[in-house]
């Protein structure tokens, strides 16, 4: 266990607080536990739950953000996912979509596959995003800061990254129950 592990909130606690601040914004959620937990916490038609294509959540969100410039688009991502699709930090930073918020739940492990360590303990992903050219970047460790910074990002022009240090706890959440084609249809209708 890492020194701060005992004091960190869980990914689900962080996600619940974020979802409470959101209404009908499109949210693209990476594969693995993050999508399963989001579905369990609050299921909205504006949620796009991924069950594969690891590393692609911010690229999908970028496509939505470019197609829908008047909607604020959020992506919920994991540290392992960000590392796999790290080039997309550059693409986002170069294109500078104002309506793009990248939330990273950083537990320093591939939680979904059994907590194998990632390298985000030594590679600060929010600094990579900042160096690439994201406009606003914050790293938070607790619930109060998370709520404060996320509210602030919702008011600001992006691209923004909110990296939340979370512990390894995983909710008892089942697999994504909706059929993928139905997720596509429902999401498209909801963000029309």
């Amino acid at each position: 266990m890492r020194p701060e592990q005992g004091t960190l909130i869980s990914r689900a606690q962080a996600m619940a607080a974020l979802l409470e601040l959101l209404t009908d914004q499109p949210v693209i959620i990476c594969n693995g536990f993050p999508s399963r937990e989001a579905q369990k916490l609050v299921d909205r038609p504006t949620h796009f739950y991924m069950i594969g294509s690891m590393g692609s959540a911010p690229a999908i969100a970028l496509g939505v953000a470019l197609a829908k410039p008047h909607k604020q688009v959020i992506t919920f991502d994991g540290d392992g996912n960000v590392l796999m699709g790290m080039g997309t930090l550059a693409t986002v930073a170069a294109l500078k979509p104002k309506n793009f918020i990248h939330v990273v739940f950083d537990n320093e492990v591939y939680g979904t596959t059994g907590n194998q360590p990632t390298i985000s303990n030594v590679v600060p992903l929010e600094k990579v995003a900042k160096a690439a050219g994201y406009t606003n970047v914050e790293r938070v460790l607790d619930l109060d800061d998370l709520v404060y910074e996320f509210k602030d990002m919702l008011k600001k022009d992006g691209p923004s990254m909110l990296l939340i240090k979370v512990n390894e706890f995983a909710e008892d959440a089942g697999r994504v129950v909706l059929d993928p084609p139905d997720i596509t249809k429902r999401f498209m209708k909801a963000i029309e």
Partner: protein
Amino acid sequence: MIESDAFVQALQDMGVNFFTGVPDSMLGGIIAELMDRRLYTPAVREDEAVAMAAGAYMGGKVPAVLMQNSGLGTSLNTLISLNLIYHQPCILIVSWRGQGGKDAPEHLVMGEVMPQLLDTMKIPHRTLTEAGAIEDFKWIAETFMKQRIPVALFITKGVVKGLHP
């Protein structure tokens, strides 16, 4: 030889309004034309381009992704576990490097297996010809609308005018 501006115009006439991808020399003329028309969103990897196109599709766009056929290798998982599983269509404009075994060594294996690879993935494909171009574009549009999965158009050497004639 098809002019790049005619090629881009044909896609626009079909309703394609989101273009992304990664360059190949054979696609250079098309990409230059797209950039002239301010229609091109550059990606850094082909799988990223495919995912971006999927997002754009869900946001109401008709997307096309330009890539060299080696990029199909890079995109395999995204095409399968995003586009095919979630029924998200896109038009893949793929330069056929290594066709007929005449190209640099790095293109020969993919050049040979590409059509079978897409057959295995059940992604419909066609090779663009100058004489059949109108038919080819019509087929692309119909397949995109009906099947809601990716559809590939192969571009062979000398069919669309490049940057260097």
